[in-house]
């Protein structure tokens, strides 16, 4: 199951912070376009490709499912932008390279590196754990540490 399917499935459940009223694509773009573009650029540094992905995010039918997303709009946009960017990056890498692999140089086990591999490069926590010779729970704990460090900074 990919990220986009997960988002769609998540919309079926309702928990907290349900937004009041449906927003249009343009309203969502005005509110979160810059944030989404920043996320996409972290994953795909080429501006022209990043802009194509950004357009696909805000013209995607999945965007409307954010109206019924159980969390805030921002979280839904973050997930959607990341999922679209990682999908585009995978296609790009598949076209240029035989496999989408973590480079062997990535031996750093810092929370920043783990966040980069998991969020920006699109690897699952299991894949990151295997590559860095860690357990999956350590990878997840590093994500917690990463955000804790940013919160405290």
């Amino acid at each position, binding site marked *: 199951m990919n990220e986009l399917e*997960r988002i769609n499935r998540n919309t079926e459940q309702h928990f907290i912070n349900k937004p009041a009223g449906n927003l249009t694509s343009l309203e969502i773009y005005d509110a979160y376009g810059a*944030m989404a573009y*920043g996320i996409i650029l972290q994953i795909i540094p080429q501006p022209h490709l990043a802009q194509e992905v950004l*357009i696909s995010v*805000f*013209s995607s039918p999945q965007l409307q499912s954010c109206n019924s997303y159980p969390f805030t709009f921002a979280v839904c946009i973050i997930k959607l932008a990341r999922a679209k960017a990682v999908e585009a990056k995978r296609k790009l890498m598949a076209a240029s390279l035989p496999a989408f692999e973590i480079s062997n140089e990535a031996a750093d086990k810092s929370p920043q590196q783990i966040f980069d591999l998991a969020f920006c490069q699109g690897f699952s926590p299991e894949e990151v754990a295997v590559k860095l010779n860690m357990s999956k729970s350590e990878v997840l*704990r590093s*994500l917690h540490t990463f955000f804790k460090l*940013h919160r405290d900074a």
Partner: protein
Amino acid sequence: MNTEEFIKSGILESYLLGLASREEQELVQQRMLDDPEISAYVSGFEKDILHFFDAKAVSPPQDVREIVLLRSKKGSTHKKKHVFSRNPKQEKNNPGAYLEVEVSDTYMKVHKYWRTAFITVFILSKIFLIAGLYYYFKSSSQEQELIRLKSQIQQQK
């Protein structure tokens, strides 16, 4: 796993970033329903995550907004289905219910059958052109032959 251990495990971060597996998602959802402390942590983390990514926000070019606007207009136009109103007066009172027609777009969409029709017409035009040229040259050569034969007969007389 108690609440603190659950929070420190990083599973909530993984869930909100879209990295969690289906089982982990279900576990988080269940714990959020059962434990208000976890729900409160998630709400706080949502704000943190927003601050984190807002700090890395980059303003996209203005053209991108225009394209999003055009696509969203197109999307909403395509999604609208015509509904027959039982009361025509209602339609008169509500002119906004009509589909919007784009006038600024320089492109035109046609049915895909037009491609086949165009290719057929193109091929037929080429066949007729070749046939026309063939019969033109053939008739002119026959005319010359006829003149030649006529002159031969006249010489024999």
